[in-house]
């Protein structure tokens, strides 16, 4: 074998040639790579720069502090309290989540239900996201957790803010409550705050009406996050703007007294400044504890509220429609005077015949009221007198007068869910039942039965309108944040002064003259005397046989079948300053509890006289010049 042969030469040439080919290949690959770099970094650099920033910079919302709700003297009715809670960071639990929960279970009480929820929350989040183990802890519990903290790996004590209603059920129907955001809420409101875990929004009452003002504006924290969403550092911080404080016209002391006085009755009571409609108390009993909805209501608690036949969740003062009964006669009397019936007198025999129907008066058993003129008709609440008034007026004029007094449509009080009561008309009757209006219905509606409905807030407004002769409109707020609520002085009523004066005289007689329906519960303290009108509303129909065989006494009827007891009034009777309405559901007719409540409440509010005390909010120029604002701020 030759050591070297000629073939080696050709081999070298081939190698060289092919190496050059490969070098060319490598060079073109290198150029391609460099070209790709040029495309990515020079041509598209800005695009990728933006995407890298989007990747790593994240905006975190900071929840604003909810505005407070205070009464007219600055007493906090809804505020934010510190929420002592303990959080668990799963990845920091040295012995695992279960061991960590076992350990803290020896310090604070944890139910199996709590543990399930915690495990569920942990499963839903990344391992470094803190999960709430317990919140709304007492100071003692919180202190105990802090004491044992060295043994509680992964646990973080934390103080947050949560809504608090210091007076609980007393103001539940004024304030409403806040609760977790529901999917429906999110559909209506695209504010990103709603997506924050644990965020609460107003669901009822003032909390709902002024949600957008009370909520405040979210702050933001721009943070740099890594690929797992962990915050590396904060790049910028914009503090949240706290929500506006709401100043209510409510006087918490009066509200408290009203609630106490109504006790366990299913009742509603509104007390207002008769001159300008400022609502001093708005109670609907029983209430509920609004704090329950904030911390999370249990199924049992919810069931108890919904199953209660006293309907604690219903705000009866603005959402309760009641037949106004005899309180409605006041409005009819007003129309009567202005329709030429100022001197009308009726001889009441206990009943009135219209066609082949007999319409009874309450006094039918004792042979009627005898000679009755207008003030006396109000005083003794003579049905026959008002049958005659209704017959002469006709339903059209009756409805016109009732609407002029503010009945039949919502008052516009700053509460959600207000209903407007109801005033019937011929057109409505025909459309609803296909039957024309019957004259008998005119009579029945003339004494506040039949189709007529009114809410307690409307009835209180009615009382205030009689008291002042002006179209007073109720309101609940003076000021929301820095904004002053604009307010025009109430216009005079479209009735003659004489008419108003006559009705007031009748209402005064009903309370203060012997024989008046409320005489037994008059205020005897000089200077504090009230005027008013009682009412009862049947919730069942009294049959002819029953009337002949003797009507079952109210006290022997089941609670649900008893009549509603109503009262509207104002005081002092000669220069009214406070107006009131009260409805006691199924309060019965014979023991008149509502008048007793009204007497105590009107006496209390006059003796306290909150209108004479300087309110916490600044007075408006408009109020100062109208003369309707009582001497506020002595």
């Amino acid at each position, binding site marked *: *074998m030759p*050591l*070297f*042969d000629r*073939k*080696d030469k*050709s*081999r*070298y040439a*081939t*190698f*060289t040639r*092919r*190496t050059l080919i*490969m*070098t060319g290949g*490598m*060079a073109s*690959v*290198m150029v*391609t*790579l*460099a070209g*790709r*770099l*040029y495309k*990515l*970094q*020079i041509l*598209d*650099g*800005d*695009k*990728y*720069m933006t*995407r*890298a*920033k989007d*990747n*790593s910079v994240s905006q975190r919302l900071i929840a604003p502090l909810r505005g407070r709700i205070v009464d007219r003297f600055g007493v906090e009715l809804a505020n934010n309290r510190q929420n002592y809670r303990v959080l668990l960071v799963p990845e920091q639990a040295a012995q695992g989540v279960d061991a960590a929960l076992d350990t803290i279970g020896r310090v604070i009480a944890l139910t199996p239900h709590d543990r399930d929820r915690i495990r569920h929350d942990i499963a839903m989040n990344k391992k470094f996201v803190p999960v709430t183990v317990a919140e709304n802890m007492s100071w003692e519990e919180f202190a105990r957790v802090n004491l044992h903290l060295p043994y509680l790996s992964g646990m973080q004590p934390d103080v947050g803010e949560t809504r608090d209603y210091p007076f609980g059920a007393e103001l539940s129907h004024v304030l409403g409550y806040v609760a977790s955001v529901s999917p429906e809420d999110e559909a209506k409101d695209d504010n990103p705050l709603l997506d924050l875990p644990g965020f609460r929004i107003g669901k009822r009452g003032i909390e709902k009406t002024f949600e957008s003002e009370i909520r405040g504006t979210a702050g933001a924290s721009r943070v*740099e*996050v*890594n*690929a*797992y969403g962990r915050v*590396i550092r904060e790049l910028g911080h914009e503090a949240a703007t706290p929500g506006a404080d709401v100043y209510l016209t409510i006087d918490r002391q009066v509200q408290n007294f009203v609630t106490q006085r109504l006790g366990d009755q299913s009742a509603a009571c509104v007390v207002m400044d008769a001159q300008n409609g400022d609502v001093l108390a708005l109670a609907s009993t029983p209430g509920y504890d609004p704090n329950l909805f904030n911390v999370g209501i249990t199924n049992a608690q919810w069931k108890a509220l919904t199953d209660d036949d006293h309907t604690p969740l219903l705000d009866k003062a603005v959402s309760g429609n009641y037949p106004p009964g005899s309180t409605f006669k006041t409005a009819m009397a007003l129309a009567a005077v202005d329709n030429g019936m100022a001197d009308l007198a009726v001889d009441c025999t206990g009943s009135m015949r219209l066609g082949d129907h007999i319409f009874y008066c309450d006094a039918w058993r004792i042979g009627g009221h005898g000679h009755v003129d207008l003030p006396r008709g109000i005083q003794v609440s003579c049905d026959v007198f008002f049958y005659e008034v209704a017959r002469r007026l006709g339903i059209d004029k009756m409805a016109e007068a009732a609407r002029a007094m503010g009945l039949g449509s919502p008052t516009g009080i700053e509460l959600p869910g207000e209903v407007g009561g109801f005033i019937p008309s011929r057109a409505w009757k025909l459309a609803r039942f296909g039957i024309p209006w019957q004259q008998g219905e005119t009579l029945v509606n003339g004494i506040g039965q039949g189709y007529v409905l009114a809410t307690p807030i409307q009835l209180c407004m009615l009382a205030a309108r009689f008291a002042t002769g002006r179209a007073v409109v109720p309101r609940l707020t003076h000021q929301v944040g820095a904004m002053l609520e604009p307010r025009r002085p109430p216009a005079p009523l479209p009735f003659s002064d004489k008419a108003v004066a006559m009705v007031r005289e009748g209402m005064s007689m009903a309370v203060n003259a012997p024989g008046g329906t409320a005489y037994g519960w008059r205020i005897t303290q000089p200077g504090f005397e009230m005027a008013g009108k009682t009412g009862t509303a049947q919730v069942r129909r009294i049959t002819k046989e029953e009337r002949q065989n003797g009507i079952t006494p109210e006290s022997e009827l089941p609670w649900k079948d008893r009549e509603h007891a109503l009262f509207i009034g104002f005081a002092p009777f000669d220069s009214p300053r406070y107006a009131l309405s009260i409805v006691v559901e199924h309060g019965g007719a014979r023991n008149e509890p509502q008048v007793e409540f009204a007497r105590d409440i009107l006496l209390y509010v006059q003796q306290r006289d909150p209108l004479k005390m300087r309110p916490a909010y600044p007075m408006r120029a408009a109020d100062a010049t109208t003369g309707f604002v009582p001497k506020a701020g002595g």
Partner: protein
Amino acid sequence: MSSRPYAAQRRALSIGEKLLEINWGLVLLVGVVASIGFAMLYSVAGGHFQPWALPQMMRFVVGLLLLIAVALVDIRVWMSLAYPAYGISLLLLVGVEVAGHVGLGAQRWIELGPLQLQPSELMKISLVLALARYLHGQSVEEVSWPLRLLIPLAMIGAPVVLVLLEPNLGTATILALDGCSLLFLAGLSWWWIAPTVSAIVAAVPIVWRFMHDYQKQRVLTFLNPASDALGAGWNISQAEIAIGSGGFAGKGFGQGTQSQLNFLPEKQTDFIYTTLGEEFGFVGSAGLLILFAVVIGFGIRIAMASRSQFGRLVAMGLTLNFFFYIMINAAMVMGLMPVVGIPMPLVSYGGTAMLTVMFGFGLLMSVHVHRQVEIPRHSAGLI
């Protein structure tokens, strides 16, 4: 130096002479590239030498000593060790299959005392050595003889199949490319090359059927990264964002948000090049490509200057191996190729890779030091 009389080369060089013969320029260049790697590892660790930069430096020092030691050994010794090395590497690959360590869903390591050995890395060098040794004995015509061609094809095929079984598509690709390149350089006839390339193109659909799901997924998401931007396409899109956001001059050392904030997977190994692109921009990433091109240029010159066919093939084979690493890694992180597990040589963190690359440079340097040595076509080496 090539003008030196042939007779003078008969005398073996002393150790000192060999040390002087080492191309220190190339060694310096390798050191510069490795230093860029240290800097990047320091950066992705958030400005710390641990856990990557310092171990990598220590390995580089060991690798440097290995390079010099390998360079000093006579090229003919390496020639005679070629077949045994190939045999051992093949046995180790089989061993991995049998008793391999399961990591990342693929069997790639063998535990040798404290060392985790990747036989597929060894095989890259062994295959080049063994093929060069075999082809050294073949004339240009003989290379293309069908029966003689069977032997190198088997030498390439066996490790490629074993590595594919691990499974490690990236390394198998590099082994196949290395082997085929050497056949091409040795003068394989175009009559073989043209039909084979056509056949491979035709075989793509068949290969597709035998691929693992994760391999298919990689190819699919490569073809359309946006289709699965948060899943399998994540790697590609995040790597592109990292490189692209570097712009012309980069965000600055240690300022790369993509890599610092863990948006990049495998940021210290396969995706280290994206960090360079992000923090030093086009200047840095194209600069590294130029440094690599210069290293490759050194390799080509060394191959052309060698007087033995073995030396030429070894030098060119190793240079190409180095190039294929760079090509696949860079193309992969730039979204030009599917994601396969191939590190960037000298820069990526990794023990076996660093040592094999330095061993390869040692062999290249040995070819350079012994470039005047002529080896008869039918010689079996020195031992």
